[in-house]
């Protein structure tokens, strides 16, 4: 009904005595794929956490999927998937059990067939029964990708999607992103490496020290703001 998926104005986030974000506005329409670029510590992850409703911003407000980010966090969470630096997987459980846990707790039936399919898609079929304590970071990342594939979100937030993945994993990630785009999902990709994410996106936002340095067409980013 509403083509505006994200509409935020005046977002600032303070951590103790330091501003992580200052006065950020962001608008995303349904089907947009936006890259958020900037050096380390510029506030990319913080912005994504606010969009995932994990953080309540110090000032500012707005809506995600039509729901207020301060009042209606529970409804937003049903439609948003967030892949952060911390993947939130339990080390003592196996890959399959981890997927099963997230399915059960989200209220879906954990069909073994579907779980296997998702794991096959990310190339983890052979190790599905092993505790993930033995997994490498890249394998864990693939597993969290499988977790998102099992859901049907409207809005996907990826924090450094290509980090820690091998070449094959990066291709896999790109394929997933392309599929989501085709499916009309809204995507936000945060990265410090514009070579990897810019080809995938149709809009770009550059952050510097918590402020927006550029927002618009990814082809026209002035060289002065890319670091």
């Amino acid at each position, binding site marked *: 009904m509403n083509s505006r998926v994200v509409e935020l104005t005046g977002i600032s986030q303070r951590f103790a005595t330091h501003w992580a974000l200052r006065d950020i506005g962001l608008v995303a329409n349904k089907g947009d794929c936006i890259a958020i670029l900037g050096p380390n510590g510029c506030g990319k992850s913080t912005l994504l956490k606010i969009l*995932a*409703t*994990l953080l*309540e911003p110090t000032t500012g407000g707005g809506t995600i999927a039509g729901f207020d980010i301060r009042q209606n*966090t*529970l409804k937003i*969470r*049903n439609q948003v998937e*967030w892949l*952060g*630096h*911390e*993947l*939130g*997987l*339990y*080390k*003592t*459980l196996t890959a399959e*059990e981890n997927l099963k*846990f*997230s399915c*059960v*707790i*989200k*209220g879906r039936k954990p069909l073994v067939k579907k779980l296997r399919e998702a794991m096959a898609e990310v190339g983890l079929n052979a190790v599905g029964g092993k*505790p993930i304590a033995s997994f490498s970071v890249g394998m864990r990342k693939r597993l969290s990708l499988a977790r998102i594939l099992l859901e049907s979100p409207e809005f996907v937030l990826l924090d450094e999607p290509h980090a820690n993945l091998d070449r094959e994993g990066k291709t896999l990630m790109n394929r997933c992103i392309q599929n989501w785009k085709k499916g009309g999902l809204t995507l936000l990709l945060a990265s410090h490496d514009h070579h990897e994410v810019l080809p995938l996106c149709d809009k770009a936002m550059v952050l510097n020290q918590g402020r927006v340095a550029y927002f618009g067409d990814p082809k026209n980013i002035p060289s002065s703001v890319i670091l």
Partner: protein
Amino acid sequence: MNFIRCLAAICHKDLLSELRKRETLNSILFFGILIIFLFSFAIGPETALLKKLAPGLLWLVVLFSAVLALDRSFQAEAEEGCLDRLILYSVSHRAIFLGKLFTNFLFVLIVQTVVLLMMMVLYDLDVPKEPWNLVLIFLLGDLGIATLGTFYALLITKTRARQVMLPLLLFPMLIPLLLACVFATQYALEGDPFLQARPWIEMLFVFDSIFLSACLLTAGLLLEA
């Protein structure tokens, strides 16, 4: 329905990883039994004295072991952002809190039972005169420890304050519970012809209901903070 399912999923997850590694239970059981030994070295080998002190020692051991169990139970969640993930799953906050509470309760109860059995052997305790009373006291006492323990462990996990803060904040809160449990246990072990344990058990009941409801009321705020 939803609520119960989430609660069960969290308990199942915790118990499954515990069964697989047996980290928490083994370490706290070992710790508990070790302390019983140490007490008899500190106090002396007189069985009569040890017998007299047994109820107090029992609950002290349980308190110390509980802190270890609580630490562990939230370490797993705090690492790797699992707690954040749980909050984002849009499950009821109370279900998360109760799920953690239930597994902690189970651990404390197991430790308590094992420690009591070990004490009966080592300190030559008689068979409890009022076994049902004893079961009731264990259930109520351990529920109180688990409730406040889960609350404080969550609070400390949220701040990344050092783990040493947990007993500093938790133990003073548990003083009434400790008093009630120790005296009630004493009557249950040695016989209670005048029903003197009654007021203490009632106090435990009041303690548990007040703090369980207060913790459930504020659990959401704590998780989201």
